[in-house]
């Protein structure tokens, strides 16, 4: 050791940690409150024209009117039912086709270009076709949501499967696990992070498509409510309806967040 200069003693610099964001419950509420406060005061001070964007308080009044009219539950029930059925069916089909595309050369050759070709077709352009194929009852509405969910699910599932460590699959084969076991116990859990992330997308798309779905002969539903508000230029109702869609999205996101926490607890 040098004795010319004084010996410096420091703790070893800490270089680790970080890169693992924790969910922080408090930020979002604060943010929402701030946005709403700015918006409300903007409206009151006249910066925001009331014709296109009513104050949040007006939207709240519209919402309370809806609650008092007793129609909220009808709208919610109708939309939730379509969402749940359409999303579930689309997801099941999507996972099935995604797994097929992730595992079989033939299936991939067919499914990937097919998805690439059909996914970009706007559902709205096809409404007339949907009416002819599925009628104007619940079927066409569910089908709209189903299609919207199906395609992104296929893409995330086969993308996730591509990313599963092949070494683990070889291990499964070496223990003579049957094909189903390998898919169910190795490939799907390995692809689960990607699949759950895909669910966030497909659920949001399903909610967006409520509006398109309920264009066709829907009496009740949040989408129908939003559409009608738009048609009648009732901007307060429009904002109230859009806010309901947002809350729906938040709820779904929260559920998926819980699912991630539970199913992916094996990750660091």
């Amino acid at each position, binding site marked *: 050791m040098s004795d010319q200069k004084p010996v410096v003693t420091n703790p070893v610099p800490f270089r680790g940690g970080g890169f693992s964001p924790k969910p922080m419950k408090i930020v979002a509420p604060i943010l929402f409150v701030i946005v709403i406060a700015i918006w409300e005061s903007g409206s009151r001070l006249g910066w925001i024209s009331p014709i296109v964007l009513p104050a949040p308080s007006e939207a709240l009044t519209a919402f309370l009117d809806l609650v008092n009219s007793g129609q909220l539950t009808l709208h919610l029930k109708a939309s939730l039912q379509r969402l749940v059925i359409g999303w579930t069916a689309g997801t099941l089909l999507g996972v099935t086709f995604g797994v097929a595309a992730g595992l079989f050369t033939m299936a991939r050759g067919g499914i990937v270009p097919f998805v690439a070709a059909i996914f970009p077709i706007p559902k709205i352009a096809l409404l007339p076709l949907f009416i002819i194929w599925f009628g104007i009852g619940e079927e066409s509405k569910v089908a709209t949501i189903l299609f919207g969910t199906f395609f992104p699910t296929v893409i995330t599932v086969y993308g996730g499967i591509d990313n599963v460590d092949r*070494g*683990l699959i*070889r*291990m*499964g*084969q*070496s*223990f*003579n*696990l*049957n094909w189903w*076991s390998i898919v169910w*116990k*190795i490939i799907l*859990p*390995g692809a*689960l992070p990607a699949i759950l992330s895909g669910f966030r997308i497909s659920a949001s798309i399903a909610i967006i498509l409520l509006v398109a779905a309920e264009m066709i002969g829907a009496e009740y539903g949040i989408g129908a409510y939003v559409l009608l508000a738009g048609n009648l230029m009732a901007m307060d109702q429009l904002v109230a309806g859009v806010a309901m869609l947002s809350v729906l999205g938040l709820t779904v996101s929260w559920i998926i967040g819980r699912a991630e926490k539970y199913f*992916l607890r*094996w*990750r*660091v």
Partner: protein
Amino acid sequence: MPPFFYLVAVFMDLHLNNISHAYDNIEVLSEIYFRIEAGQIVCIIGPSGCGKSTLLRFIGGLERPNSGEVLLIGEPPKESLNPLTYIFQDFALLPWRTVRGNISLVLEDHGIRGKGANAIIDDVLARTKLSDFGDALPRQLSGGMKQRVAIARALSVRPACLLMDEPLSALDSQTRELLMDDLIELWIREKYTACYVTHNLNEAVRLGHKVVVLSRRPGKIREIVEIDIPLEERQEHSGLLQEKQNYLWDLMREEAMAADQELNQ
């Protein structure tokens, strides 16, 4: 401590018939020809990257060589759940299953669940000194503990032939000793078949009936050293074993020197 009782004695030879292989123009193995007789432990040693893991994958049917074949002579016993069982060099544990889950994974397919599975799992965990860690996830384990889980998993399926790729490399000398002793004791009782890749020459001479020495890449058979002393008597012949070990050492040294010269040309 009860001895291992899962391994199954067999009458099943493995015959490696002139195996050669190349990955994208890199020749890895060349004309490998030897036989793993039923009830024999064959050790494979050779320089890093000479193709030992590759060879093991061929033997277990996980990959196919470009030319040559591995023949199974005789039939695997019925009692064995998975006749040819690997212990992988990189452990290959499922990160989303606990230690117990990783073992039950390979039992479930044979309809072994619940109590039956628990009994087997408890036993193999005890053997590998992991009883406290049954519910830990792989990310919570040290390197050596992961390797022991891989060993426990392999033992749980009553293999007829164990294909082991440096199964003790991450373990401390004592744990290693204990597991070596277990393997020897077990062989004495059960006469299982095994193909054992190792870098530890001492392990090779203590465990192997045959030691296959591979040359540097492309791996050719440099020599097959037979060790005639019965496993049960080896402790008494430590001098002889040391001689064999020195002999292997010299063989390997020559290989290394040849490689060095090639490099420096």
